[in-house]
């Protein structure tokens, strides 16, 4: 059996299959479906310093081979997260990566500081794609200087691995990627959702209360592959792939393109056992093709 373990900075995953923030709750919702300890890692739903109620309904819409969401990062806030959600996660033997977001750069730092005392957090994923107020209306990951500065500030308060999650809604994702690399990120993950919109012709209004939302699912896989490829070509730190991964073939395509690990997102809603199915499919592929180490496969695409 092929050794599937991969390294993301100092973080070692037993296999490259993780689940994406906001699509796996705080893992408890999935415990009935498969043994959570099988997969490489769990990224939590985004946590913010203060509790957030989330957006008004409707928050979701089905689209061609995908969906739109404007959930709005509802969460109980970092304090309650630690008390209410971590106890379920702590006994797990898979890696726990807490996804953090903030309205301001200081919010990120403060949330991470608060989480530093907490046991069994293996890394942080910084969600740079949420609406930002203070820094001039741009999202954090649409402005390289801000993304770099925030990363640097968070880097100062933690030794845990830092993954910067990037938005695809920019002219150059690798410019932002390089900025967070300079800021001290150990890895980047990409992509977050694409800005999209759906219209209800009958009601003559947008399908989402927020008018636009984030597009995910198989529809965006080609965009994700292109962004991952661009990042792999331009950065020195590892790239974690997200976007439309529904099955083992999809996962393998991203690994071939150079991602060291992948996150399963929207697929979790369609097939709550998708992460395990994908892991098993990846393992089968390596076994059948007698691939010795996963590292020789990662990035071996012929271009």
């Amino acid at each position, binding site marked *: 059996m092929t050794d599937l373990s991969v390294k993301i900075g100092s973080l070692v995953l037993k296999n490259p299959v993780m689940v994406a923030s906001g699509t796996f709750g705080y893992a408890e919702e999935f415990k009935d*479906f498969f043994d959570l300890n099988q997969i490489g890692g769990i990224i939590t739903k985004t946590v913010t310093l203060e509790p957030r109620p989330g957006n008004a309904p409707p928050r979701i819409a089905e689209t061609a081979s995908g*969906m739109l969401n404007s959930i709005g990062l509802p969460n109980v806030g970092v304090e309650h997260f630690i008390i209410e959600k971590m106890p379920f996660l702590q006994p797990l033997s898979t890696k726990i990566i807490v996804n953090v977001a903030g309205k301001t750069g200081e919010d990120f730092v403060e949330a991470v500081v608060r989480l530093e005392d907490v046991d069994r957090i293996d890394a942080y994923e910084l969600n740079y794609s949420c609406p930002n107020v203070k820094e001039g209306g741009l999202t954090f990951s649409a402005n390289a200087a801000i993304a770099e500065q925030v990363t640097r500030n968070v880097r100062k308060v933690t030794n845990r691995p830092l993954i910067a999650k990037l938005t695809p809604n920019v002219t150059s994702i690798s410019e932002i990627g390089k900025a967070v690399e300079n800021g001290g990120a150990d890895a980047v993950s990409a992509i977050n959702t694409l800005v999209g919109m759906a219209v209800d012709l009958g009601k003559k209004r947008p399908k989402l209360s927020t008018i636009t939302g984030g597009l995910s699912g198989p529809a965006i896989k080609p965009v994700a592959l292109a962004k991952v490829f661009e990042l792999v070509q331009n950065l020195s730190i590892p790239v974690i792939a997200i976007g439309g991964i529904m099955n083992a073939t999809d996962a393998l395509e991203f690994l071939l393109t150079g991602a060291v690990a992948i996150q399963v997102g929207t697929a979790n809603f369609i*097939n*709550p056992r998708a992460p395990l199915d994908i892991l098993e499919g990846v393992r089968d592929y390596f076994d059948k093709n007698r691939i010795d180490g996963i590292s020789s496969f990662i990035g071996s695409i012929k271009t």
Partner: protein
Amino acid sequence: MSGNKILTEATVKHLEEIAENIFRMHLYEPHIAQTSHAGQFVNIQIAQGTTIFWRRPFSIHSTNPESGIFEILFNAVGRGTQVLKKIKNGAKLNLVGPLGNTFNHAPHLEEIIIVAGGLGIAPFKLLLQDLRKQQLKKTVFFGVSSTANLCCLDEFSRLGAKCRVSTEDGSKGYHGFVTDDLQNYLQELPDSSHRELLVCGPTPMLRKVQEIAQTLQINAQVSVENIMACGFGACMGCPVQLAHPHDDGKRYLLACKDGPVFNMDEILLDD
């Protein structure tokens, strides 16, 4: 207690159009049939490899724990249900369930009053099954646009309920909205305590019932039908707004996990 939710394949055993564009499907899946209670639902993958991306949620209409069969009732309204209505016996349907919470029956009730509009009737056969052994009055107010859309009356009677039908076109029963018939009924009662409304149907109907229940101070439980992506609390896509949050902000529950059954005075209805 309801059973754990599972990802499973159910076998289609029977499919019938029981009223105009209303279909009843028998599905063989013992875990669902044996552990589900009224209000819960299953989330069905219509067909892999089609452009129908999400699963589709359907209330569990009734169960037969012995045979391992449960029923769903559906209206062929859109892309998914149009495919579903053509499925052949023996086909396997991938589904997740049982999902959601259940109606709960306060003790010492005198009467439960079911109020259903159209396909809102779906969850209540199982409710009557759940309550079969309970000695209390069971009344069903069932509103449809026309006689052609009526179904389930016989079964409901057999399960000990008294059915009152309203049709919008007057082709049967009360001529008008079911909520008007309901209001008449409730107003004539000497005392509305020890009674509870269990409601499911289109939003305008729910609003009206909410109003009546508030005025008459009757407790009402409602099963909501939000659009859902996952059905089990993972996507947070199905919020239901709390009517009385503990602070000034907006607070939401999740229809699929905290519901689909809510106390009517607890939530704000939207469309």
